[in-house]
């Protein structure tokens, strides 16, 4: 099948690649572009390890075609930190021990990043609902909820200031 030329914004820079129409966005990111932050867990749209931010929305990149990203904007975990400074969601996961093995973490972080823009002052219950597309087999979720709450507080403090 003929490859297609696509151009999209990735973590603030412009990328151009050739992909087969059947290539999934997660594979284009990891294999063609070498951005291995986003993980592949289930490959069946259940676990959320492959979550990326696509045109301002959280999506599971194992269930989006790379050709669909043409002209769009993608943000992955690699794009969260700025000039060596961790994003508040990253800091939250570190401070509150929001991870153990870390496999789910890139998806958790990029989902938490978008969730806190959708709901800057969430209750713990809101966090559990908002993060319900991301599975973690290690932490039992308690510390993930705390980590997102930590980030929410920090974001409100810095944005309110």
């Amino acid at each position, binding site marked *: 099948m003929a490859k297609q030329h696509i151009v999209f914004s990735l973590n603030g820079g412009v990328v151009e690649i050739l992909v087969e129409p059947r290539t999934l966005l997660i594979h284009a990111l990891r294999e063609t572009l070498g951005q291995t932050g986003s993980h592949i867990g289930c*490959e069946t*749209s*259940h676990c959320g390890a492959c979550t990326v931010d696509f045109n301002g929305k959280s*999506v599971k990149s194992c*269930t989006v*075609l790379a050709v*669909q990203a043409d002209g769009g904007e993608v943000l992955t975990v690699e794009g969260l930190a700025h000039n060596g400074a961790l994003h508040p969601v990253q800091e939250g996961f570190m401070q509150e021990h929001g991870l153990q093995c870390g496999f789910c973490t890139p998806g958790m972080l990029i989902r938490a990043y978008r969730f806190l823009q959708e709901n800057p002052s969430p209750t713990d219950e809101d966090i559990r609902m908002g993060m*319900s*597309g991301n599975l973690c087999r290690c932490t039992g979720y308690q510390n993930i909820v705390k980590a997102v709450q930590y980030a929410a507080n920090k974001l409100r403090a810095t944005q309110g200031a």
Partner: protein
Amino acid sequence: MIPGTFDYHAPATVDEAIRLLGELGDEAKLLAGGHSLLPMMKLRFASPKHLIDLNRIGALKGIREQSGMIHIGAMTTENELIASALLREKCPLLPEAAKWISDPQVRNCGTLGGDIAHGDPGNDHPAVMMAVDAVFVLQGPRGERLIVADRFFHGLYYTELAPDEILTEIRIPAVSKGTGYAYCKLKRKTGDFATAAAAVQLRLDGGVCKKINIALTNVAPTALKAGDAEMSLTGKVIDEALIEQAARKAMAVCDPAEDQRGNRDYKTHMAGEMTRRAIRQALARAKGN
């Protein structure tokens, strides 16, 4: 898991999409949110040679009101349904049910049109569409035709849609005063399809039930209308004894397939329980209006 090879088309208008469907024939499939189709393609349950992506057709999106009817573009996503103030006011059952579909990421992609057109009895919108008296707009090379939700679902993955037609719009009458609604869904965990679910919309006038729709999810090869149960409540002042009788009548039409969610008896029983709960909640809401 990667889908088999196919050519990708991204038309900008409905006419172009219909022309492509006509030219490419049986080899082509429409791609909406992709959250049923792409998983099936990864598993080789579907191997279309061409995908026609509807995501770049702006005309298929959006929610508006026109002479008492709510018009919803087929490509409107679950999260857009949930966020709509117009729907919350004029067709509240729809956003309520959409909240129960999978998780936030899936709801950002999955579309109302895709959920209906897929013809999967596990999908939630087919029963909801029956409960709200929805009308579907199907567009094809011979023009446009309208079909009511009750007549659209023929069997497992088998609907009224012809291979060269697109579901372009869903039209739903705005609710009137005294309307109550509920969607009660039993599922094992977030991201699971219903073990059984019931959609109810009813209208009270002076305490009497003037009209009631009851539809069931995932307890037969298609979503089901529980017609006898509806009839047993219409024209009555609904009480617990009548609710029990209606739940029994709803159970009588169930024909579920046994799977890891449970055997036939369990699913039928749960359909009855979801029906009871949905009628009670709809009744309480109608009285509160």
